[in-house]
């Protein structure tokens, strides 16, 4: 979901004249708040969330402090440098190259014992280190007291306590960074601490065991010297939550209920802004029309600009924006709270039975935001075989660009006859069913892949369940809207403008008295009819390749171009438009099926190509869902014809 990640490396690289520029690397265990520290230092909005493995690539940002400029690199979380996974290799290689002027090791104050392991390992490579003990606020709540001075003494490097979420202690951290970079403070790593520790990937296993056991012993000694637990039951609250969220009786129902509530809020909440936006755009259209008429512009220009570009553009915004703007933040809040890893925990057995990895449910969850991000997120799965399965099936989760399409169809065809609260509930249940179908297919395809082309036994599943955290609701909402919703919308808008123009041209250029659009849709018509759709819908899915958000607007544009109806301001009128163009319940069902099961959008395809480095797998990732979609629609259509 960290869509911003793509932009990071390019942005803010304007060279301003500073005295010096230093490179700072942020390292640490997964889920200790590295990204939060990164954001707090750089003022950037790298996506944060409470689950291990969220950051899988190096992100880079800049900050200035006094006269110096710092390039800050957010390394992926690592448990150790004796790497056993891709993201750990990324971090290890970076640290081994010794390019950083200073390494800040971010640690979790609530879990120092294990965190110290990595600290010792990094200290054995470089001594330009600052240990940042983060989440001090949480530790305090749990009654964990850390003697930072003693810790600094034991390690031989500066130790700074922070609470990055509330931006506490960051000045001290920057101060310490500066001192190390300009050489004012020299670190003298305690010799006996790192004695005999070699960090290398080619160490024989027995030596590695010994090294790790040694490190563990040393860490335990330091821990006992520096950390005191004043409350014995500091994990009690988390345990109670886990009892509720992961037990046999309540685990799965609560999970479904949780998603149900999120979808319900999205569906019900999106209605109102959708209507307002439609009304607003309609008003603007009147003024625009008058203006263009005043200019005496030719008819074709009016048609091109208003009926083509403007209509498609406003449709994308009015129908697609509200559900996105509501779903994104809600999901982020869930992510912030630490609930997502519990889903992986609950669902792991299903994935194990399919010879896949439980962390696949985490990547699927990311897929709700954006499939491309879900695909990148698959790096958290260590085994290449299981990672590939997760990549190939990620598209079965409807991303934020497809969710509004499903919601619109459900509201028009299935929930319209209900009223009030019931309407929202019916929509939610149907949407949930559609998504469960997608998840079910994910499992079946995973099983199929691991029994055929991606044969293998399940690798080990080791997942950390982080402590629950109170989500920062307001901050999350603001950030989701500005960071992610607008970014996704921007992408959709960029695609919607040329798409609208193209369709208008197709609909208005005649050859032998028949429009080009008619030629195109007629071409797809037989195939479309066969699978319960029509030529327009098939063409819309194909033209929607750059961004799924524009599928529905294209369908509507095509229908409107045939002159049946030109007014649209509510779903009821839209419904009439669709019915007049031959839509039935079967068409609606088949469109929804195709919406979940068809080739990934172009961004996702490019990402899959990058991640798998294989054209073959990319092609397969497009073929599998499309084939399933076509087959399912074919069956549904045949059943409906028989009935």
């Amino acid at each position, binding site marked *: 979901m960290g869509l911003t990640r793509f932009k990071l490396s390019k942005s803010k690289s304007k060279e301003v004249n500073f005295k010096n520029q230093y490179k700072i690397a942020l390292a640490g265990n997964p889920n200790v708040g590295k990204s939060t520290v990164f954001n707090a230092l750089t003022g950037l909005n790298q996506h944060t969330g409470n689950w291990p493995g969220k950051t899988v690539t190096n992100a880079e940002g800049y900050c200035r402090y006094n006269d110096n400029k710092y390039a800050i690199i957010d390394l992926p979380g690592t*448990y*150790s440098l*004796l790497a*056993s*996974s891709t993201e750990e290799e990324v971090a290890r290689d970076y640290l081994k190259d010794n390019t950083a002027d200073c390494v800040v090791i971010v640690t979790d104050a*609530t*879990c*120092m*014992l*294990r965190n110290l*392991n990595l600290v010792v390992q990094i200290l054995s490579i470089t001594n330009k280190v600052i240990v940042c003990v983060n989440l001090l606020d949480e530790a305090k709540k749990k009654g964990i007291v850390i003697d930072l001075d003693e810790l600094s003494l034991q390690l031989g490097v500066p130790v700074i306590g922070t609470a990055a979420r509330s931006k506490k202690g960051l000045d001290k951290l920057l101060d310490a960074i500066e001192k190390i970079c300009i050489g004012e403070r020299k670190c003298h790593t305690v010799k006996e601490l790192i004695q005999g520790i070699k960090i290398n990937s080619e160490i024989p*296993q027995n030596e*590695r*065991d010994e090294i*790790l*056991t040694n490190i*563990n012993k040393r860490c335990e000694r330091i821990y006992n010297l520096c950390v005191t637990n004043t409350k014995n039951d500091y*994990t009690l609250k*988390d*345990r109670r939550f*886990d*009892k509720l969220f*992961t*037990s*046999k009786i309540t*685990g*799965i129902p609560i999970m479904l209920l949780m998603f149900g509530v999120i979808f319900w809020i999205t569906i019900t909440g999106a209605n109102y802004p959708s209507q307002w936006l439609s009304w607003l755009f309609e008003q603007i259209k009147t003024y625009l029309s008058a203006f263009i008429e005043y200019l005496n512009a030719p008819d074709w220009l009016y048609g091109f600009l208003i009926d083509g570009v403007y209509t498609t553009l406003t449709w994308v915004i009015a129908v697609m924006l509200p559900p996105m703007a509501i779903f994104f933040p809600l999901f982020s809040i869930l992510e912030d709270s630490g609930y997502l890893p519990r889903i992986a*925990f*609950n669902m*792991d*057995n*299903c994935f*194990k039975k399919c010879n896949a990895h*439980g962390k696949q449910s985490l990547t699927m969850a990311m897929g709700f935001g954006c499939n491309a991000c879900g695909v990148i997120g698959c790096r958290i799965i*260590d085994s290449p075989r299981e990672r590939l399965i997760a990549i190939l099936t990620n598209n079965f989760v409807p991303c934020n660009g497809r969710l509004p399409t499903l919601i619109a169809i459900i509201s028009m065809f299935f929930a319209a006859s209900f009223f009030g609260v019931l309407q929202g509930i019916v929509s939610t249940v149907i949407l949930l069913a559609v998504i469960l179908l997608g998840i079910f297919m994910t499992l079946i395809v995973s099983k199929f892949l691991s029994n055929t082309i991606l044969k293998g036994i*399940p*690798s*080990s*599943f*080791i*997942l*950390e*369940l*982080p*402590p629950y955290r109170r989500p920062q609701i307001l901050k999350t909402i603001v950030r989701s809207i500005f960071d992610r919703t607008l970014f996704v919308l921007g992408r959709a808008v960029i695609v919607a403008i040329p798409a609208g123009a193209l369709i208008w041209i197709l609909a208005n250029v005649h050859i032998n008295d028949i429009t080009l659009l008619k030629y195109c849709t007629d071409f797809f018509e037989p195939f479309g009819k066969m699978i319960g759709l029509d030529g327009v819908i098939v063409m819309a899915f194909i033209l929607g390749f750059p961004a799924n958000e524009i599928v529905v607007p294209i369908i509507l544009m095509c229908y409107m171009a045939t002159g049946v109806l030109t007014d649209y301001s509510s779903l009821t009128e839209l419904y009439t438009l669709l019915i007049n163009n031959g839509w039935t319940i079967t068409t609606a069902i088949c469109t929804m099926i195709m919406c979940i099961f068809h080739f990934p959008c172009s961004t996702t395809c490019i990402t899959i190509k990058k991640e798998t480095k294989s054209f073959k797998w990319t092609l397969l990732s497009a073929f599998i869902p499309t084939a399933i979609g076509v087959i399912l629609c074919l069956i549904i259509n045949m059943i409906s014809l028989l009935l």
Partner: protein
Amino acid sequence: MNSNTLTLREIKSGEKCKVEDLLSKGKARNRLLDLGFVKNSIIEVLQKSPSGDPVAYFVKGCVIALRSEDAENILVREI
């Protein structure tokens, strides 16, 4: 190895045990070591997932979920 050595899988929820040895090899072994499943560290069995597998363990101040196959590879002593 003495007679009261069990695998971690056999320990019931709510009970504590001490790590004796790891049977797993390669990457899985390294990862377990990284997470604190080293000799003599104390593990508390927390909560089973709805289907009974995986199980959550409390080790070195963190909650770690393991599948039964991995838990079987961890030899422990009851305490």
